[in-house]
């Protein structure tokens, strides 16, 4: 009798397990917010060209048209036409690359001194028009609108129209659009999501140079340590490499980056994956396009376990030096070599900006929800510390300003290597729609804060003991509710680069505001304006004697006489310049109209006399 009872009880448990869980799942399915349906829509054949992205650099136009899937029997050839004297003239023709349906054009000897209307043509019916802008070298201020994190899920406000972003980009007439990563969050259907991205943003992308950097989610994984194209098998991908097949990654990069200027060092990495790190010179701003994930080493199995995930450190007592292991790479040597030459090349450039997926520090303390305090996150570019310092040393030699995203938390940091504030500034923009919340919330108040600034600002050590100085953080609300976009600190960034005053102004706007409305407010801590020269001005340095040149805005280079190390190269503003330099050392100063070809001072020291220099 007992046996029968137990048998029945066991069977009931089995039935419960098999039936109740799916039933509950279905119940939750009805309760939970609806999910975005991501499909490729059927379009009229006249609408088969979804959008087009382009850049112009060094008199070469590169434009990639993104098509919807073509039907069998349809032509696989697409033309690019330019309007000349009222007539459309074909300047290039290309074949559609079927995995991804992209049509990449290249037009050399492009005259960038005038704007041109263009249209992409497929068959007899499909035409897509836009404007190739003239190179804005005559503008004092170059405006770069920055975006990151484009969730389309209703739970994050991702289903809310992007029209506010479109309107504001038009109102500020941005010269360049910069999407720092996670344009796509779907890990399997990049094409469908990319086409949706094009439908959402194509109207502003088609008329101005646009840079999209594919980040982890774009290539189909939650985090990315590219490790030179290795294959990743670990859940979470902290073992380094790519989770999706190389062919998938190639398709993503073709869609998002094939319109970039040619890569400076185009050798492929593992799985046939290409590289796209290069520079774009536009409006006398020289943008270095980094891809800071591509060579970065994965931490799993290389660093001692310090938390519940291979890439998370939750033990505040750990020794930061213990994770800065030999062999761990942040930027690859090829990228560092590129930065070294880029930092010294000031042809047609007044200012330099580095664009990358994320910032060079651990820029958040609380992850995921209003809990989850992480001491350090190795997905950030604060790790490995040695690689982080190498990258910053390379960038500060060019007084480069760093514009990035990825963190889902807008911040301004002034980075330090040997001392606080001895390297570059970075601006991390907020997400378009915020998938994953983070907070900058140090336990100790920052040192050397500005008067009446929040305690979270000031000098800090991040979780890797990197020196950082925070000036602003757009922390989301602890219990986001109501306005699902802005309580989750969604928004976008605007950076204004003034090539005359050499000032850099960072703006951080919430969603659904009119940036031209005087009553519209930015997130607390913004706007902030810095000088280009603040990007390498260590507090411990002194000043060399003032140099007065007989040409306007020459290029000046400071070289350590003992080590021959180039400390920095920069195009100065105007005819006078007071170089900053370490104390107790002697320097060579080189200068020239467009390159530092002439030694103008052989033994410069801090506190030295002013000098006049002729470069004519």
């Amino acid at each position, binding site marked *: 009798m007992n*046996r029968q009872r*137990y*048998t029945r009880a*066991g*069977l009931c*448990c*089995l039935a419960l*397990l*098999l039936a109740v*869980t*799916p039933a509950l*799942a279905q119940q939750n*399915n009805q*309760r939970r917010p609806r*999910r975005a349906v991501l499909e490729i829509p059927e379009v009229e054949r006249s609408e088969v060209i979804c959008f087009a992205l382009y850049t112009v650099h060094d008199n070469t136009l590169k434009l990639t048209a993104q098509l919807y899937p073509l039907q069998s029997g349809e032509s696989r050839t697409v033309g690019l036409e330019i309007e000349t004297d009222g007539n459309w003239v074909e300047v290039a023709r290309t074949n559609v690359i079927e995995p991804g349906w992209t049509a990449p054009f290249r037009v050399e000897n492009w005259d960038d001194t005038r704007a041109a209307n263009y249209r992409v043509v497929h068959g007899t019916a499909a035409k897509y028009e836009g404007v190739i802008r003239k190179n804005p070298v005559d503008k004092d201020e170059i405006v770069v609108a920055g975006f990151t994190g484009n969730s389309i899920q209703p739970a994050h406000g991702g289903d809310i129209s992007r029209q506010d972003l479109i309107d504001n980009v038009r109102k500020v007439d941005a010269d360049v659009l910069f999407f720092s990563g996670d344009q796509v969050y779907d*890990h*399997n*259907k990049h094409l469908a999501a990319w086409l949706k991205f094009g439908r959402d943003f194509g109207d502003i992308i088609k008329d101005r140079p646009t840079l999209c950097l594919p980040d982890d989610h774009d290539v*189909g*994984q939650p985090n990315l340590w590219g490790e030179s194209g290795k*294959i*990743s*098998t*670990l*859940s979470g991908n902290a*073992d380094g490499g*790519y*989770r*999706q*097949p*190389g*062919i*998938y990654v190639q398709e993503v990069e073709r869609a998002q980056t094939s319109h970039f200027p040619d890569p400076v060092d185009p050798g492929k990495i593992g799985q046939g994956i290409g590289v796209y790190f290069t520079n774009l010179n536009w409006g006398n701003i020289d943008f270095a396009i980094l891809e800071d994930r591509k060579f970065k080493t994965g931490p*799993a*199995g*290389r*660093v*001692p*376990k310090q938390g*519940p*995930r*291979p890439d998370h450190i939750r033990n505040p007592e750990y020794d930061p030096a213990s994770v800065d292991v030999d062999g761990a790479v942040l930027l690859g040597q090829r990228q560092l070599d590129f930065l070294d030459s880029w930092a010294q090349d000031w042809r047609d450039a007044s200012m330099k900006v580095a664009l990358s997926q994320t910032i060079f520090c651990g820029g958040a*303390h*609380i992850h*995921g*929800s*209003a*809990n*989850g*305090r992480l001491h350090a996150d190795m997905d950030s570019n604060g790790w490995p510390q040695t690689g982080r310092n190498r990258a910053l040393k390379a960038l500060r030699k060019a007084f480069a300003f760093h514009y990035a995203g990825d963190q889902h938390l807008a911040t301004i940091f002034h980075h330090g290597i040997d001392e606080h504030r001895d390297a570059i500034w970075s601006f991390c923009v907020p997400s378009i729609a915020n998938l994953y919340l983070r*907070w900058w*919330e140090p*336990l100790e108040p920052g040192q050397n804060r500005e008067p009446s600034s929040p305690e979270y600002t000031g000098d800090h050590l991040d979780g890797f003991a990197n020196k950082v100085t925070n000036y602003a953080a757009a922390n989301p609300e*602890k*219990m986001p509710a109501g306005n699902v976009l802005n309580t989750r600190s969604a928004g976008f960034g605007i950076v204004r680069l003034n090539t005359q005053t050499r000032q850099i102004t960072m703006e951080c706007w919430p969603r659904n505001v009119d940036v031209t409305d005087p009553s519209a407010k930015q997130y607390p801590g913004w706007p902030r304006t810095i000088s280009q020269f603040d990007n390498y001005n260590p507090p411990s340095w002194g000043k060399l004697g003032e140099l007065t040149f007989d040409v306007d805005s020459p290029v000046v280079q400071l070289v350590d006489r003992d080590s021959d190390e180039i400390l920095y190269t920069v195009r100065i503003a105007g005819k006078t310049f007071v170089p900053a330099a370490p104390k107790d050392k002697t320097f060579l100063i080189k200068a020239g109209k467009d390159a530092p070809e002439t030694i103008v001072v052989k033994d410069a020291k801090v506190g030295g006399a002013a000098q006049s220099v002729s470069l004519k």
Partner: protein
Amino acid sequence: MHYYWEGPYGVLLWQDATYDLATGLGLSWDEFVGTGADDGFVQKWIARIWWLYLACTLLTITVRKTSWVQMSGLVLGSGLLTLLSYASYVAAQRQLPMFIEHGGQMLIPLILVMALALGVRHRVTVTTAVIALIMTFAGHGCYAIGFWPTPGNFYAMTTLILGADYSTAQMLLRTAGVLDFLVCIGICIPYLRRASALYASVWGFLTAVARPVAGMSWGLNYWGADQFLHETALRAPHFAIPLFLFFLWRKPGEKKVSPRSAEGDR
């Protein structure tokens, strides 16, 4: 695994509905999620779940035919594994095969209980084992054949272990997917069931060890064992259940054992 690495329960707990429930139980926001300076209820309890699994492991070792307490604990353990599978399903954006493929993991404690309580040859025990096998292989098959997007790590492991290029790896995965479904059918056909169970045992073993084989390396701390070995342990039901069925059916043509006679096995 839950002692060393964090389980994927956060996806279930970080929801407004969960917080509403916690509020109903008298927990404040700070108590529930922490102050930011310390861990809240959620983090603390996620970190303690491993105790429950350790207890279930001990129950598995100590359970006997008449150990009803242990058996009850194992039934609850099956519920724990079901919860874990449900968390994986939610984390995978509610892809149905993700839940289904965990059938082996979810049901194996119940199969043990049934084998002890009813007998290894009892039709309920055998049917449950067959269901577990079908769930595992049908779930994997849905992914491998491409009914749902084939996970990147399927390609990754195939490429790393076999050195296959993408198109070859895809062909192999599609083939494996077809075979997965054939196993699901074959296991229900008396004439084919033993061969199907043997294939399922071998394939289940190979796929379970594929993760450490593909991921471990001499250059990693502990050779990467702490990153990958538990993945094989977690997937042990993928080959253990078909192996159980294979040995159970090791005498083809044997007279079918009735439930009453199976009771005699006890």
